[in-house]
């Protein structure tokens, strides 16, 4: 129950931990957007290298970062299979006939599936580096700052941020509560871990009902506590921790902008300079072509 890594802060001190949370969010956004524009395998390799270096700097063990992929492994494989089977354009590599149904596996389908899987992996790794190196409080504070412009179109950003931070603050407590209640019911002989799907759901009721009761009770208590301290979300509030951009933040941000520019150049410029060679099933684009040509030049 406690081994959910996605969004769990890893408490060590590092350069990455020290970067301003707002900058980190922007960096992650840039990274996520640019991941969708990667076309060449060379850039994928390059991005994975870059991530490896970033993880090394952040001093979070690789094992913990990689754990985040475990959660989406099913999704990853599922989308890959869909892509392989349902892309019909390109040269047919393996034709499958099931009676009247004809499914052709094409080289484009395979390439697309591989690239999609790589993109997903990059996305999840990138975002878990953000959540592993930034505390939830920092994250919500930074989000509140970044979304401030939305207050002009009457969106209550501060309220949303408070809701989010309270929700985040409640998660560990609720997890602990779940653990406790599960133990208490197990002590009464409840069989929670075995049986089929429906049995399991039915067996979860003795855990879920007390959990909801306690969640509502906690929420009530918290609301009372906020009221008792005259909390009012709409008034102008000051922050305990004021964000200040430092030179290192700017350096980090610039390097990510460069990275994005590099990926866009790869997609829209480099590929168009050379004509793509035919390499059987492998689809080469952008930098791949450059490297291929370079390789040809050296070997003659």
């Amino acid at each position, binding site marked *: 129950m406690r081994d959910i890594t996605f969004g769990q802060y890893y408490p060590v001190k590092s350069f990455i931990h020290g970067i301003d949370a707002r900058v980190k969010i922007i960096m992650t956004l840039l990274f996520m957007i640019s991941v969708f524009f990667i076309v060449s395998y060379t850039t994928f390799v390059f991005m994975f290298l870059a991530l490896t270096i970033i993880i090394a700097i952040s001093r979070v063990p690789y094992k913990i970062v990689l754990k985040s992929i475990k959660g989406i492994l099913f999704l990853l494989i599922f989308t890959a299979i869909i892509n392989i089977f349902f892309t019909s354009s390109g040269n047919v590599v393996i034709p499958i006939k099931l009676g009247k149904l004809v499914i052709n596996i094409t080289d484009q389908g395979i390439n697309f599936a591989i690239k999609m899987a790589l993109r997903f992996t990059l996305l999840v790794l990138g975002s878990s580096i953000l959540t592993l190196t930034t505390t939830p409080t920092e994250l919500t504070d930074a989000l509140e700052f970044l979304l401030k412009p939305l207050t002009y179109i009457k969106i209550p950003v501060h309220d949303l941020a408070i809701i989010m931070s309270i929700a985040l603050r409640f998660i560990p407590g609720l997890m602990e509560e779940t653990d406790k209640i599960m133990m*208490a019911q197990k002590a*009464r002989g409840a069989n929670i871990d075995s049986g089929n799907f429906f049995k399991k759901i039915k067996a979860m009721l003795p855990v879920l009902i007390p959990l909801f009761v306690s969640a509502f009770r906690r929420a009530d208590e918290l609301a009372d506590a906020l009221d008792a301290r005259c909390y009012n979300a709409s008034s102008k509030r000051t922050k305990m921790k004021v964000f200040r951009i430092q030179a290192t933040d700017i350096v980090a941000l610039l390097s990510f902008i460069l990275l994005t520019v590099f990926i866009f150049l790869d997609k829209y410029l480099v590929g168009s300079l050379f004509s793509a060679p035919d390499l059987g099933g492998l689809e080469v684009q952008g930098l791949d072509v450059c490297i291929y040509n370079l390789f040809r030049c050296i070997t003659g």
Partner: protein
Amino acid sequence: MSIIVKNLSFTYSAKTPYEKKALDNINLEINDGDFLGIIGHTGSGKSTFIQHINGLIKPQEGEIEIFDIKLSSARRPKADLRALRSQVGMVFQYPEYQLFADTVEKDVAFGPKNLGLSSEEVADRVRHAIEMVGLDYEMVKDRAPFELSGGQKRRVAIAGIIAMQPKVLILDEPTAGLDPFGKEQILNLIKYLKTHCSPTIVVISHDIDEITRFANRIVVFNDSKIVYDEPMQQLFKHSRQLQDMGLDIPRAVKIANSLRYRGIELSEDIVTAEDLLREIIDKYNQKHGTELDKDGCVFDMYDFSQKWLTSEERAALEGRTLEQKPQAKKQRSSKSKTLREKTVKTKTVKKVNTKEKFEGSEK
């Protein structure tokens, strides 16, 4: 020998930055008929320990033997946890938070049903358990547990455990969060259960005055280890060490220690207020040749502390600092004044705080 624990160790979140050792080489034997009290700080490992006894946590190192059921870190043979839980009942802290069914009857029936008993047997046990915790079966059985008062809810939750008729009953802070009246009821219930339901009882508590009222043996946890495991009458020889660990000692022991420091000889095994009272009356009878008995005099703790203790000791006893004024004006009889003069002399020679006095009294 009902429960034997050998070399038990446990670490939470091993190999992560959140790593925390909770149990460090625990050895303990709990005998049939024991009324065992466990005391220790929050985080001293006592809760982790009792969760092991009920098979809720798999041992990482060491082994536990409970009525011939063996628990260890080995994967096979698989321990029969259902059999274990029918032998060892566990009442968690705030057990009313585990209530879930829409009627009291159904909730209490949850445990015995899980044991796979026949429906007549379950109904029988439910009625018996609800009556045993002092509730009116006909009145509460169809009510929703959430409608009941705090103390009643807790009793329903306890009924849910004893309906499984365990031979060993473990209670984690059974009186936490109750008013004095509710506490008293739960304590009496526990005493009653000892004779009528589960012959072996283990209680975790923060309140030492509470635990000394019924335990015959006390185990002290500190820093994931067992530091003391002694019969209750013997434990408070270590008053000083217990206080150094930040644990409280019974009020009667505090008073007895102060009296001993003042040169009054008292027997070693004073633990409860009744023990102290008996001892003092004995002394009085010896000195004055009277034959008062316990029922013949009213012992007023407040009056006693006003007459016989120094202001520092009173402050320590009432849990306030010296600067805060006591609530009532001092009234001292002429007899206690002469006794006070004696102590004042010793006080001027060495200005010691209460703690050091206890050290002196121990020697």
